[in-house]
């Protein structure tokens, strides 16, 4: 119990900094790929701090409630995950968190946010099956839903559920809001939706969204790592490679329409899930 709490608290305290470092590296590498110098590595942190220096301005007061709930539940999701709880609950908590984010965008009653919210919903719908199937795969491989048991499994789960790993890496692009799947809102400047989902969030409200994103990044990379948990260092290497791949994809692709996103994500989930779970079930 105590170790679990330590892990959870550790996540809550450290994740934003780790997330910011990852984000900073991301921007640095992106800049290098484009032949630029890029911002300092700690830039994501500066951004967040700046946002909290800004005026508390909103479109509607209620919006902050939804966004704050989003932040809290993202943190909760990550804390559950890193304290080794039930992975299905983790996924459901994450869905709840995102529902709050989407509701926050709806609550602004602004056209750009509205379309952003709808697209975020599409993204949610695209990703959800893969996450649930991955959880199912973990269970079939280890006989437990508890992240703790999965992490302590003596063999790398990648060996038993490789296709699910591929599927998770695929939807990671959607979850990290990377091109070509950054439909709802994007880190890149100037797009047809202004800033989509986040268009109406200013100052500290946006700051909360950014922090949540830092937590989320760490959580998702943790999920990737889980496939290699028995070999922690190899896992770390895989995480780095995967993230580098994401940056590469981000910089070399253009945004697709939602149909392509939904179809491809579902197809990957279906194929990966059906084959991998099927093989596990029949063996």
């Amino acid at each position: 119990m105590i170790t679990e709490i330590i892990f959870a608290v550790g996540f809550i305290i450290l994740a934003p900094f780790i997330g910011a470092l990852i984000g900073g590296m991301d921007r640095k590498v992106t800049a290098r790929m484009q032949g630029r110098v890029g911002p300092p590595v700690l830039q994501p942190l500066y951004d967040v701090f700046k946002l909290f220096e800004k005026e508390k301005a909103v479109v509607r007061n209620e919006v902050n409630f939804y966004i704050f709930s989003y932040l809290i539940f993202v943190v909760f999701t990550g804390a559950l995950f890193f304290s080794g709880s039930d992975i299905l609950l983790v996924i459901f908590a994450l869905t709840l968190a995102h529902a709050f984010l989407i509701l926050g965008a709806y609550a602004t009653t602004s056209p750009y946010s509205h379309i952003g919210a709808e697209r975020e919903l599409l993204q949610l719908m695209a990703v959800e099956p893969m996450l649930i199937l991955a959880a199912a795969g973990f269970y079939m491989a280890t006989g437990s839903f508890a992240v703790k048991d999965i992490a302590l499994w003596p063999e790398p789960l990648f060996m038993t559920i490789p296709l699910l790993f591929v599927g998770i890496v695929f939807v990671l692009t959607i979850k990290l809001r990377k091109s070509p799947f950054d439909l709802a809102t994007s880190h890149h400047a100037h797009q047809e939706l202004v800033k989509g989902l986040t268009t109406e969030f200013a100052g500290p409200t946006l700051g909360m969204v950014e922090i949540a994103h830092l937590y989320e990044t760490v959580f998702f990379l943790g999920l990737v790592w889980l496939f290699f948990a028995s070999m922690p260092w190899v896992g770390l290497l895989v995480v780095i490679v995967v993230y580098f791949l994401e940056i590469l994809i981000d910089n070399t692709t253009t945004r697709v329409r939602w149909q392509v996103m939904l179809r491809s994500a579902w197809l990957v989930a279906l194929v990966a899930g059906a084959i991998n779970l099927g093989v596990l079930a029949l063996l």
Partner: protein
Amino acid sequence: MELLVFLILFPALAALVFCILPNGRLRDTIVVLVSAIIIAVTLYLFVMFAGAGTVYFDIESGMISQIMTGLEIIISAGLLYLAAKYRQYLIAGLVVVQLGVVLYAESLIQETAALNNLFIDPFSIIMAMIIGIIGSLICVYSVGYMRDYHTHHADMPDKRRWFFALLFVFLAAMFGVVFSNNLFWLFFFWEVTTLCSFLLIGYNWGDEQTRKNAFWALLLNLVGGLGFACTFAWIGLTDPSGGLIMMDTLLAAGPAVAMIPAALIGFAGLTKAAQMPFSSWLVGAMIAPTPVSALLHSSTMVKAGVYVIVRFAPIYNVTMVGYLISLVGGVTFLLASGIAISQSNAKKVLAYSTIANLGLVVACAGIGSYAAVWAAILLIVFHAIAKSLLFLSVGTVEHKIGSRDIEDMTGLLGRMPKVAVMMIIGIAGMFLAPFGMLISKWAALVAFLDAPYGFILVLLLAFGSAVTVFFWTKWLGKLIEVAWKPEPLEVKISNHEYGALVPLTVLMVAVCIGFPLLSSYLVVPYVFGIYGMTATLGQANMIIMVMMVFMVLVMPLTLLHFRKDRKILPRYVGGRPATSDMHFKGSIGVQRPVALGNYYLANYFGEQRLSHIGNGVCIAFIALMLAGILLGVIA
């Protein structure tokens, strides 16, 4: 025993009274009174029998069975008359065949001194509470709603006496279904629910479409009824002593004996629970006044369908028949959820979501393992409460804003804050963690994973629940999209409507918080009684769930903080100045309103397209199942 008989007879007798009473205050008061009595008795029933396990009651069946047969003949005659009058020959044929099969079977079975005709066990208690409490609340709600309904439809003949009588007969029949151990009795009540639903759907009889939908519902349910009737023929032919006519004996006989009746009754259950390919009757039933929909969807009718399937779940466990039933449920869950995306009519969304959720229950029951049954029962409970709440709030909103379209509910939170909050609670209860349905979904997933070949169901569930999130969230979004503070519309909602909405909301929250109790006092004893083991949420998970419920409940308090000293900025409309009620200055200086519509993706999730697929696939599964049985019979 008196309690059980009382619950069956009292609403039926009350119905007689309502046939006579004219519209007016007296009738309204009596409706409320009768409902209150039913609720009270149901609660008393709970207190009396909650810890008692399974209790059987001896009732001399001879006389009663004859009365039932007599009533069945009368009902059939009535249906024949209607069918002939409106040239529904298929229905006429089904009625005749069904009656023939039943009478033939009765002649085969020598009426032994059948005992134990009534019984009660924890599952019956749960169902009785759903029927008694939710059903009665819907009746109370109807008082206010139907008054409005007839002011809105002034040209319609006012048949409210008939309406209230039918509501209570419906409740009586449902009590009969869940308390009967004698399958003949169960079948009788089963047919009464079919009849009641037919008449209630056809309430606005003068309307052509209404009649058509009512007959369609009747037709499909008669098909199911025929399947049920065949059970008796089978029992009559294999075991003329009539011992198997008792559900407990049949269930105890195990799959080797009971497979065929279980499959037939499962088939009947699929029709009544509106699974694909039979789902269209429930969608058509939306044409009825909203309380009828609420009743059909939450506490009666479809619940009778899943009730029998869950009853026979132990027989289905690890069998081909069970697996096929599961697949029908699973496919229905996925596709009906998908169709719900493409609907903007609130009642239709609710209808498809009901079909989908019942699909999940059926999928669990078909798997039939202890964990699956545990999940199925919880699903039934949560669904009943959330769905009735949603239907009733949609009904109220419809009367106030004059539309049942979700697009017209934009910013409802501003216009009708109280009702909107209830609706939001209902919707959250349908799909969000940590509320009820999600717990059940979690349990269902675990159950599927442990079942042989369950991974296909896991796939269906994974995609289905993703789809569910989509259409519920966008509805929620519409409700909270408040552009400005408009005139409140809530002033004239009748006390009767509040009288049902408020308790249902409280119930919803209470069940979400108190579900561990529900599980350990009712569901677990039932499941344990059958399987000797049971599923529960692990303690750690329980704590997490409770934590989440607590967080969600506390979160709104932060509004107090976020209300303070914020600067309100105008919304961004491409840099054009926009007013606070979202009109912007368009070209040549014309003010235009901003119109925000949701995605319905009709080209991808269209009703036609998906229901064709679903019907085809499910017909194949059912045909396979029936063929399997036929082979079994021949062999």
